[in-house]
């Protein structure tokens, strides 16, 4: 099916490359700089719009209208909030471990940027198309545990410490089902490369082949991003603000930014791996991608504004006793499926 305007950004990239003639090294360097700038802008944009979306959706579900004062229908609210946070005092608690406390928010945001570099935003629009894309993505996003723990430990606050401990326990337990749920897709496509996974879905999205994988992924991803019903790291009803209790101003905003960047990332991965990425009729690929990401984001928002929070031990039980077996079963089923498929059509597949 034709996709109009798909090549828009790709052509722009070609144009820029063209400016440097044949000297590919300069062109590569310039393109890398531009790509990274775009990713930064994307993070800011995604976070600002997702925060607004979150507040709007929350409002609608609660029979409210959400932010409605600043700009048309309140669309500039988050911009104003960000400005306000920039202007706030940056407080270091007297007892805090200065370096650990100060660096934690930067790590969060740095890791998000690293992950966003390998996501295929459209056909030919992968900033860095690694051949171990998914592997890299999971490896880096697993590191997000560390800044949370740094925040919890560095604050030298009991609430924060409990929050940090919870972060470690929770993220490690949910990392495993998350990885396993994606393995099924990798087994089918026989590749780690993100663009290749999208290409493999030109006929059928993997959500149809891997429904269980999708469900496990969605649940594990909710826990990975620390969102309700798994928002124990923050756990405002018992831990006030968990690991972020002592943070103020821009440092706190960076955590917030990181949280929404992570939300965007897990949604983008789900869109890429299970929902066919940029594939879709008529519309340009990147618009399809955006629609799918938004759908996933809405799903996460919807969960958050409907469910209460689990308890820390229940969270662990659920992770290890339900999700992990399910994801392993998924791998087994996929393996059997592939085997049968190969028996029937020996020519195709692995």
């Amino acid at each position, binding site marked *: 099916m034709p996709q109009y305007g798909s090549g828009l950004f790709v052509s722009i990239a070609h144009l820029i490359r063209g400016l440097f003639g044949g000297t590919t090294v300069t062109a590569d360097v310039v393109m890398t700089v531009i790509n990274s700038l775009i990713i930064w802008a994307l993070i800011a944009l995604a976070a600002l719009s997702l925060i607004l979306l979150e507040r709007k959706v929350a*409002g609608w*579900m*609660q*029979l409210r*209208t959400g932010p*409605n004062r600043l700009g048309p229908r309140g669309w500039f609210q988050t911009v104003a909030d960000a400005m306000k946070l920039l202007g706030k005092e940056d407080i270091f608690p007297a007892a805090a471990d200065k370096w650990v406390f100060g660096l934690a928010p930067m790590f969060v945001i740095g890791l998000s940027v690293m992950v966003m570099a390998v996501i295929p935003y459209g056909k030919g629009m992968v900033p860095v198309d690694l051949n171990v894309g998914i592997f890299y993505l999971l490896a880096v996003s697993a590191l997000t545990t560390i800044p949370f723990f740094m925040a919890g430990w560095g604050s030298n606050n009991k609430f924060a410490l409990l929050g940090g401990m919870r972060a470690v326990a929770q993220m490690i337990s949910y990392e495993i089902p998350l990885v396993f749920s994606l393995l099924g897709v990798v087994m089918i496509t026989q590749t780690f490369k993100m663009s290749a996974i999208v290409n493999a879905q030109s006929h059928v999205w993997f959500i149809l082949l891997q429904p269980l994988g999708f469900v496990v992924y969605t649940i594990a991803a909710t826990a990975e991003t620390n969102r309700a019903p798994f928002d124990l790291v923050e756990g405002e009803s018992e831990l006030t603000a968990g690991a972020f209790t002592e943070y103020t101003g821009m440092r706190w905003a960076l955590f917030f930014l990181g949280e929404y960047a992570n939300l965007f990332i897990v949604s983008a991965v789900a869109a890429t791996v299970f929902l066919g990425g940029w594939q879709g009729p008529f519309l340009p690929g990147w618009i399809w991608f955006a629609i799918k990401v938004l759908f996933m984001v809405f799903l996460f928002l*919807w969960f958050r*504004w409907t469910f209460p929070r689990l308890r820390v031990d229940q969270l662990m039980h659920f992770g290890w006793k339900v999700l992990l077996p399910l994801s392993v079963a998924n791998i087994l089923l996929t393996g059997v499926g592939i085997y049968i498929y190969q028996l029937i059509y020996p020519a195709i597949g692995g």
Partner: protein
Amino acid sequence: MFGKGLAKGLGITFRHMFDKKITEFYPEDMPTLPPRTRSSLALNTPKCISCGMCSSACPNKVITLTTDKNESNKKFLTSYHMDLTRCLFCGLCTEACPTKALYTTTEFENAVYFREDMQWDMMQRYRDKVASGEIKEEVKPETKQEEAKDNG
């Protein structure tokens, strides 16, 4: 089956997304409070017979009034002061008032920046209200309307 309740909850929140919102757009759409709302107090000075019932009914000594006597030995108000910082808005004073000179109003925007602004000179407030045309000087607006009808 596990998950049935979760799905039901999701359904409820999803339905409400498209419901009519109940947010009040406060400064744009001023709410019309029911007439009995006790959110502010006002004094209709000409009606007051300076009996002091209001001040003695008040549990918190909010009201202080001073009176004087004119030639025909009739009491009249010389000052009527309310310390709103102590008021409970309980309405006991307006209930006690025999002529309903003191009444509750539905004005609810009573917030002020300075503590002194909570000291209300009720007679001055009445004069301000009359000056701004919010209430008529004459006590009974109904009779006035009737008169107007008769004339015109």
